[in-house]
């Protein structure tokens, strides 16, 4: 299977601390993958590198069929190429309505002049309404997103990600702060999304990962410790030692 995102041999050092150490990772165009690892294993740094926020000291990040070199692109260019990111905490624009938030995320030209001349067409409006309905905010379109509850903001952010139509989706602890019912809904949505795109989920919650029922990558000290099914990695003595045993 060809991969849509190929990370090979990246290393990054912060003030002498080696956060990522010769890490390689690849994911197929329609695959769900979970990344686990103890705190400080480099999960967030890994996401920062893929999305262009942090530059690695060495290694390469290659995306898509045209083999785009992500290390030469800005965050915005990477996002436009099709790598979306969901932060652990909901980051929506509080001062703007649900509609405005979704409009911002909607796939459309991103340059200042094109945006200046942008007019909302009926097809855009119906897309926004459909997205809002999909994430359960169909009746909240006119509300300022700052007024939404924590869970609703998470959903709005997921809606914004869907609106971006990314080909690779990096999701940081999607289940954090959600109720049981919301978690189930999130699981179903992630599995559904992974049918058409690559989805990388960083998560602590083992129960949640079990429900995702996908391949798991275990990170430790900035490198891949084990990879395989959840049962496979949880049997691995090294994994038990550094992660599960302490958990």
């Amino acid at each position: 299977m060809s991969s849509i995102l190929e990370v090979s041999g990246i290393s990054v050092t912060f003030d002498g601390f080696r956060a990522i150490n010769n890490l390689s990772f690849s994911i197929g165009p329609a695959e769900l993958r979970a990344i686990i690892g103890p705190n400080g294993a480099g999960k967030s740094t890994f996401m920062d590198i893929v999305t262009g926020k942090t530059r690695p000291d060495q290694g390469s990040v290659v995306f898509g069929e045209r083999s785009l070199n992500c290390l030469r692109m800005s965050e915005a260019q990477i996002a436009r190429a099709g790598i979306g990111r969901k932060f652990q905490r909901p980051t929506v624009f509080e001062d703007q309505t649900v509609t405005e938030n979704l409009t911002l995320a909607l796939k459309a030209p991103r340059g200042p002049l094109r945006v200046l001349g942008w007019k909302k067409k009926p097809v855009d409006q119906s897309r926004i309404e459909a997205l809002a309905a999909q994430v359960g905010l169909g009746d909240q379109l006119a509300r300022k997103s700052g007024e939404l509850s924590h869970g609703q903001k998470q959903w709005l952010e997921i809606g914004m990600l869907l609106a971006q139509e990314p080909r690779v989706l990096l999701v940081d602890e999607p289940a954090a702060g959600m109720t049981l019912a919301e978690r189930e809904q999130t699981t179903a949505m992630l599995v559904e999304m992974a049918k058409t795109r690559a989805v990388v989920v960083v998560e602590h919650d083992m129960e949640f990962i079990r429900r995702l029922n996908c391949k798991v990558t275990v990170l430790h000290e900035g490198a891949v410790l084990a990879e395989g099914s959840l049962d496979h990695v949880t049997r691995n003595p090294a994994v038990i030692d550094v992660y599960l045993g302490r958990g």
Partner: protein
Amino acid sequence: MKQGILAKNPSVLIFLAILALFTIVVTFGSEAYGAGFVSTSFVKTLGKTLCLCLAALAMDLIWGYAGILSLGHMAFFALGGYLIGMWLMYARTEEIVVAAMAQDALPATAEEIRQGIATQIFGVVGSSDLPVIWHFAHSLPIQLALVVLVPGLLALAFGWLAFRARVTGVYLSILTQAMTLALALYLFQNDSGLRGNNGLSGLQNLPGLGDVGQDRLSIWFFWASALGLGLAYVALSGVVGGKFGSVIRAIRDDEARVRFLGYSVESYKLFVFTLTAVICAFAGVLYYPQAGIINPAELAPIASIYLAVWVAIGGRGRLYGAVIGAAFVSLMSSLFTGGRVPAIDLGILRIDWVDWWQVLLGVVFVLVTLFAPKGIGGLFDLVLHRRSPDRKGAPLGPEDSALREKEALE
């Protein structure tokens, strides 16, 4: 989606109505066209105030909407003034020189006229050569084009360097202030080519309109200023009301998130910075012929800080707030510094408003910042019962973005 911009923004219609009413009242009260209860000098003050409102609109766009606290925008305002001033002074001096030389026996050559103009303008700084930068001063269209080009390119170059290096927040404010200070210090030099600290003067006399009195000219400029303000208000309402406004407000609130949505934050900042610089330059073009004189002190950092104070007091993040702030504070300023407000005698201390006005303004600014961050514009929210979401708990800081203390515990 068939709604026009006016229907979507009722405030635009109200604003235009008030501006039109104000213009009509002043016109019919003026000495030239009406009853004469508004003196010519006061018409000029009002016209200048409208120009300051225009600059405040630009400041609101860059600070209130895009969140970039530029403390250098009055530099662009003054640059606009200098560029139009060059033409006004050149063309006016040309008239005088030509008239003077008409007495001579031999008809003056173009070179003689040019020399005469140079001596007239630059005698004050001990020079009789026309500096290179005055090369196009004889042509109004070229000088007007330069009004767009010079401040525009300066803003573009400065903004490109600053935004590309991701200079933000207070560092950017300091940088913009350094820019305006450097420009002012340069212009203070006699060999800067713009008459050093003498500046350009006599700008109230329009070339070719020598027989039109100041009473009529002042009203014409007042109209032009009102028109400029009205047009800019409508245009900027369109800009901030659409998706573009949504993007720049998002940049103000969380620029990293905007990057991950695929927007090039730096291009947007550069666009807004340059656009507002050009708007300020045009405001300066309308302002200085009414002021009559421009000198490098106009570029002092304090002028740009005043601009920020007006917008803060008026209420940033809403266009009418900026206009109200600029109009209110600058009119109060001319009232208090005009020496007609009676001093308050406290026995040990005599509060003479000419000196104490700045103290009062400073106190008001601090109070507004602390207790009424929405400024005067916030009063409209009270009237309209529009409230911001009441969210308990302190923000967790920029990294944690949307989350507040209480919600984080859930």
